[in-house]
């Protein structure tokens, strides 16, 4: 079977690699001691994590009165972080599932780590509702199970229960998808490694994989099915998160565009984070030939696309708030843009709508330093987007006597930093213990250059 590739196609992996070479190069970080820069990064992340554990312990012991909430702003920092982290995860699923369905083969170099990022981000996100429960050890009460309280069931009409189902499904299916994708690579490492311990551990994890095509055939079908399921799943998860707000009657929260708008925002923020992580990883782990500037450029294009979609949604919201003729809608949006939180609003607009427009220029898309800076802006902007939506819609309601502000407490800020610590700690450990790039899938995309007769 020969491939008829258009002359316009670029190589996805540089440097004419043989299959064995790919295995060796991707596994290299796992076979040597960590570098100094890794240790430095790990130390910073781990310290942040320790601080976060301290902050979380403190607020669980004392209670969530340690937060800066008040009767008007009853939701603020905690849920902002929750939505932010869930959103981060979405890029991973987009890369692994949606790009797979659209046969965007360039995804193979980045899907493994993007999926890992998804899992870690969902873990981080899950922490926030747990903390908010006040008594996290009773978290199992949200599950619908027969109990001695009646049975007293959770309310399935509540978007918060939808969240429970959405987040746990998202985590489990993403984890399954990720693990299924890992199995062939785990077997590769099992067979390559010389150390007995490694052989044992990877032997257990690879479930006796032997590369049989009869299994590959079924495996590929399941992989495609999981991609097919993960695609609507990723849409549903952030839609359901958006419904926490949109099912209410609060101006600024209740708006029908929220589900697709949140999904676009989530993918956008996720790509911001993927870019940040990939640019660091390819530098630290020396994976330039696998994660090429072409990959970075394509991710920039997706960030541009989703950033523009988010911009269109901001515009639509603003326009319809005016078009509705409702004085409350109009006030909420004017207050967002010109009220006490105007600074947050304009950070959001400039980081999310204006900054990604720089990606129209090929020079900036291919300049890794610029991309890195812009990706940080995207991360900041998307955090502020959630903050703006949540806080500005609450802090000035129908009764001016209720109007108030909101300032996070130290504990809240420490928790956020701690969760960033958790995220990076997990990611750094992942880079060391598992193949960061899907070995098998990368081999399949270099294979078109891999015919005996015409070596390219």
């Amino acid at each position, binding site marked *: *079977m020969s491939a008829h590739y258009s002359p316009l196609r670029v190589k996805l992996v540089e440097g004419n690699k043989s299959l064995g070479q790919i295995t060796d190069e991707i596994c290299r970080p796992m076979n040597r001691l960590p570098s100094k820069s890794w240790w430095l990064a790990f130390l910073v992340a781990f310290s942040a994590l320790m601080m976060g554990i301290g902050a979380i312990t403190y607020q669980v012991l004392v209670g969530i009165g340690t937060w800066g909430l008040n009767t008007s702003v009853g939701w603020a920092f905690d849920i902002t972080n929750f939505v932010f982290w869930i959103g981060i995860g979405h890029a991973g699923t987009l890369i692994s599932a949606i790009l797979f369905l659209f046969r965007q083969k360039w995804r193979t170099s980045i899907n493994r780590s993007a999926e890992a990022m998804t899992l870690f981000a969902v873990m981080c996100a899950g922490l926030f509702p747990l903390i908010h429960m006040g008594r996290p050890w009773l978290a199992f009460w949200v599950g619908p199970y027969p109990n001695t309280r009646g049975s007293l069931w959770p309310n399935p009409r509540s978007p918060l229960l939808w969240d429970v189902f959405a987040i746990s499904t998202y985590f489990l299916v993403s984890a399954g998808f990720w693990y299924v994708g890992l199995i062939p690579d785990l077997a590769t490492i099992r067979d390559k490694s010389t150390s007995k311990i490694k052989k044992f551990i990877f032997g257990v994890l690879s479930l006796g994989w032997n590369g049989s095509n009869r299994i590959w055939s079924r495996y590929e079908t399941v992989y495609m099915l999981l991609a097919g399921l993960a695609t609507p799943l990723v849409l549903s998860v952030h839609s359901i998160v958006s419904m926490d707000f949109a099912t209410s009657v609060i101006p600024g929260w209740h708006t029908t565009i929220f589900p697709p708008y949140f999904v676009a925002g989530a993918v956008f923020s996720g790509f911001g984070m993927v870019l940040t992580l990939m640019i660091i990883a390819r530098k630290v782990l020396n994976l330039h030939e696998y994660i090429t500037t072409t990959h970075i450029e394509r991710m920039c294009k997706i960030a541009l696309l989703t950033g523009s979609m988010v911009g269109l949604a901001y515009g639509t919201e603003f326009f319809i708030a005016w078009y509705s003729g409702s004085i409350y809608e109009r006030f909420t949006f004017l207050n967002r843009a010109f009220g006490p939180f105007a600074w947050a609003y304009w950070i959001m607009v400039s980081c999310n709508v204006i900054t990604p427009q720089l990606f129209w220029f090929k020079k900036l898309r291919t300049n890794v330093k610029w991309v890195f800076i812009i990706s940080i802006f995207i991360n900041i902007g998307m955090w502020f987007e959630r903050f703006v939506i949540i806080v500005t819609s609450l802090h000035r309601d129908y009764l001016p006597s209720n109007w108030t502000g909101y300032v996070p407490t130290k504990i809240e800020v420490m928790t956020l930093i701690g969760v960033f610590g958790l995220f990076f700690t997990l990611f750094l450990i992942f880079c060391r213990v598992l193949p960061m790039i899907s070995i098998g899938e990368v081999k399949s995309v270099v294979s078109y250059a891999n015919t005996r007769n015409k070596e390219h």
Partner: protein
Amino acid sequence: MSQTYVVAYFEHEDDILGATRKSRESGHTIVDVFTPYAVHGMDEAMGLRFSRMTWVCFIFGMLGALGAVFGQMYITMVDWPAVIGGKPLNSLPAYIPITFECAVLFGGLGSIVVLFARSKLFPFKKPDFLLPSVTNDKFALVLKADSATITAKDLQPFFADFGATHIEERLEDTLTVAEGAPGSGPVHQTETTHH
């Protein structure tokens, strides 16, 4: 009971595909093909039937969805009816999100579990018929030596076109395969000894 197999090793995707096609056309019994990654077009070359996993996924998904719909209705209409937020007892539009999530959860995890069960993949399993380097950079075609003419030596010219790097014979214990049936069933193997 043991059986002799001929194993031919290749280094390129095109070669293994070509060799597999040719073996099938010549009427050899292909036991299996071992590759480091999923080779596009190999299912056709081997004559495998399209996997039925789609149906497994669909049925599990449907089970999840139906369970969720009726579960929610049972909770809100039968077991503990309560008017909450002015919503009707049967708030079907509000039940859709959980229904959808359960469909995906069951469909996804169900297919993974069935994949593992049908492919006999489980922790602590010793890989069956594990050939050297097939998880790294070699492609191996395994034929059943069911007549005297199918020996490593006889097949040498047969595979020469495809640049076979090495052809060997292996004697394996009780290796059974659904012969001739183009099923997608796994290579059923109970005990294997490697020499």
